[in-house]
């Protein structure tokens, strides 16, 4: 093996920065899944009867469903009776009143994660809903948003304060019975964020939710619902971290986005769940269903995701393009290093006329990582003049990793234009030597090359987060080649 490969081989392992655990008193349900646990969750959340019934319906359906076998990922069977479905930091079980009431230990945790919640050092221009294990511990800038009529709160709070909106839209994009993990989520979801942008309002700041798994042996099942009413605009970002543990933990979320006439939703994810160690021990199973619907004419939904964490990632954020002239976008960077596995992509369903979708996927495989792009572009019969452009690139670092592409195209309308481009490239020794000859060491060269490769996606992220995503990618690449 040549020297430059060795150099990359030896790059310092940087520890997962967010792997700490907060020792805090919790209140939790007994492990295991049955109707009583679901009733308990619903009761804890003081939910209306219809919601409990909704959960139970999902649960009963879930019992009949097989685990999906089709993704290109391998993992031992999950024992759903071994998971704790409800864990709340003791002090917040009734839901926080305001940030001032939040346990200082929790505030400290979010400080350490770089997401200060206190009034004085909050991130400027970003409202944060902080979800810790099963509950939201607080939401910032509520008052400021309220003045514009924007509702941004925890899901539990929305159930209490805006039940009519929740009832109207919950499950309207991802039905309870949609798929195995969505059904599981629908049965046991505990919290998440809710967001409603009224007609004609441009949300004055970025909205974001920060998900943190803390407790051991627990799963996180959150639910996010975003509704952009006619002519409104919102940009939303989610971030996630978890402690380092030897056992795998399950995260099965559902995100639903609804865009009415002329509305626009931009949803960005920087996913940095604990990926497991270099031998594949531990890490989060990230099995997520994300879907948006462009209900109205000229509406737009754009997904941007930077997936660097998790032992296994399984997610296909999609857009149903129902309104005429609506636009769906998917920009993705998915990195798998060490033993990480990712099977991710998107679904673009063209229903309305003149609907357009763009898919830019950048997979990066390093170490023994396995990375699959799986995408569906479906054009229904009445979708005259639908257009899709897909570009799926794979970058390999080293020779023990793998990249796979599974594009599915179903077109039922003859006026459709679908363009698909794919490429696979390797971070070459040539490139690394070229950089070295220009005084740039291998480690920096790999980061530079990979960041260059991801540029099209990063430029879709809000400025502050683009920088964070770049740093994250650099950290995730440490020790990348084997």
């Amino acid at each position: 093996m040549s020297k430059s490969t060795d150099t990359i081989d030896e790059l310092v392992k940087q520890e997962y920065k967010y792997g700490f655990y907060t020792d805090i008193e919790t209140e939790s349900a007994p492990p295991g899944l049955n109707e009583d646990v679901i009733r308990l969750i619903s009761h804890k959340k003081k939910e209306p009867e219809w919601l409990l019934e909704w959960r139970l319906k999902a649960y009963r359906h879930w019992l009949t469903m097989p685990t999906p076998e089709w993704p290109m990922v391998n993992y031992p069977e999950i024992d759903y009776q071994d998971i704790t479905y409800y864990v709340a930091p003791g002090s917040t079980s009734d839901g926080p009143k305001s940030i001032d009431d939040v346990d200082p230990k929790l505030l400290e945790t979010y400080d350490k994660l770089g997401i200060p919640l206190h009034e004085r050092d909050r991130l400027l221009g970003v409202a944060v809903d902080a979800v810790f294990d099963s509950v939201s511990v607080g939401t910032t800038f509520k008052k400021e948003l309220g003045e514009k009529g924007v509702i941004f709160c925890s899901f539990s709070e929305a159930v209490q304060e805006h039940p009519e909106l929740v009832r109207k839209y919950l499950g309207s994009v991802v039905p309870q019975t949609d798929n195995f993990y969505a059904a599981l989520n629908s049965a046991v979801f505990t919290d998440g964020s809710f967001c409603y942008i009224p007609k004609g309002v441009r949300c004055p700041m970025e909205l974001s939710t920060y998900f943190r798994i803390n407790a051991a042996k627990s799963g996180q099942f959150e639910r996010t619902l975003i509704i952009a009413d006619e002519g409104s605009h919102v940009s939303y970002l989610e971030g996630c971290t978890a402690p380092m543990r030897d056992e795998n933990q399950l995260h099965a979320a559902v995100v639903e986005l609804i865009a009415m006439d002329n509305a626009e939703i931009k949803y960005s994810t920087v996913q940095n769940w604990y990926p497991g160690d270099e031998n594949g021990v531990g890490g989060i199973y990230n099995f997520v269903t994300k879907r948006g619907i462009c209900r109205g004419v000229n509406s737009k939904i754009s997904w941007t995701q930077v997936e660097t964490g998790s032992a296994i990632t399984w997610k296909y954020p999609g857009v149903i393009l129902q309104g005429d002239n609506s636009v769906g976008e998917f920009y993705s960077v998915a990195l798998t290093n060490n033993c990480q596995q990712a099977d991710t992509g998107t679904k673009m369903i063209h229903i309305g006329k003149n609907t357009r979708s763009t898919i830019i996927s950048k997979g990066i495989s390093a170490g023994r990582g396995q990375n699959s792009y799986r995408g569906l572009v479906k054009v229904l019969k009445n979708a005259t003049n639908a257009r899709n452009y897909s570009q799926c690139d794979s970058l390999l670092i080293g020779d023990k990793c793998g990249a796979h592409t599974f594009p599915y195209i179903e077109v039922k309308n003859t006026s459709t234009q679908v363009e698909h481009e794919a490429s696979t490239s390797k971070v070459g020794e040539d490139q690394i030597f070229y950089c070295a000859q220009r005084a740039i060491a291998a480690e920096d060269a790999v980061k530079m090359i990979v960041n260059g490769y991801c540029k099209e996606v990063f430029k879709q992220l809000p400025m502050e987060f683009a920088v964070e995503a770049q740093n994250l990618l650099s950290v995730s690449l440490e020790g990348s080649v084997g």
Partner: protein
Amino acid sequence: MTQPILTIKNLSAGVEGREILKGINLTIRPGEVHAVMGPNGSGKSTLASILAGRDGYHITGGEVVYCGQDLLELEAEDRAREGVFLAFQYPVEIPGVNSTYFLKAAYNEIRKHRGQPEFDAVEFLKFVRERMKILEVPEDFLKRPVNHGFSGGEKKRNEIFQMAVLDPKLAILDETDSGLDIDALQIVATGVNRLKRPDNAQLVITHYQRLLNFIVPDYVHVLVDGRIVRTGGKELALELEENGYESIVHGGAVPA
């Protein structure tokens, strides 16, 4: 006499199971321009690569001293930081990486190595604009990704532009002239000449005497089958042009 910039003594090297360089001797002093000519596959690029520190070659004998230190001991990036520059025969593309960003990173590595403070974006841009004048490079070279989508000639010109920015002590130009049109050749050669100083040196690999009309060498070396079979002044290039390598190989010439 001043210390040489480069001294190659009896250097033998190759790849697994195959010797490519078979005892090279070469001394380059400050202020000198050396040309290396030789048939395809004779080992010219191999020599350049080994000097620049590319992996994958086995050194089987000899030594290389650069400004008083053992060059072969240094990592490629450290050689670059110490002032060794290679203009590649085949410059490498780095898609998505902005040329200015790349050059700034490179230049700041060198500044750090020299114990100088790094340039910020504004300082660097000012500096780089100065250097651009030497080569008459189009402004868009700065904005485009490194070599990505460049024509063959543009890539070569970009190499010399990088040389102008990084200001090396020893510049090795591997067939920089091939692929350049006549005007570009003149611009590049003029640039290279302007970068020449009494305290640096240039090693120019070429197949064509034409380049040497513009970049006038102090010495011409003929490399055949891994050995320097003849060394002479600039007139040797003319002789080669006229008679080809055959006459030198079979003409019983004494190795330098």
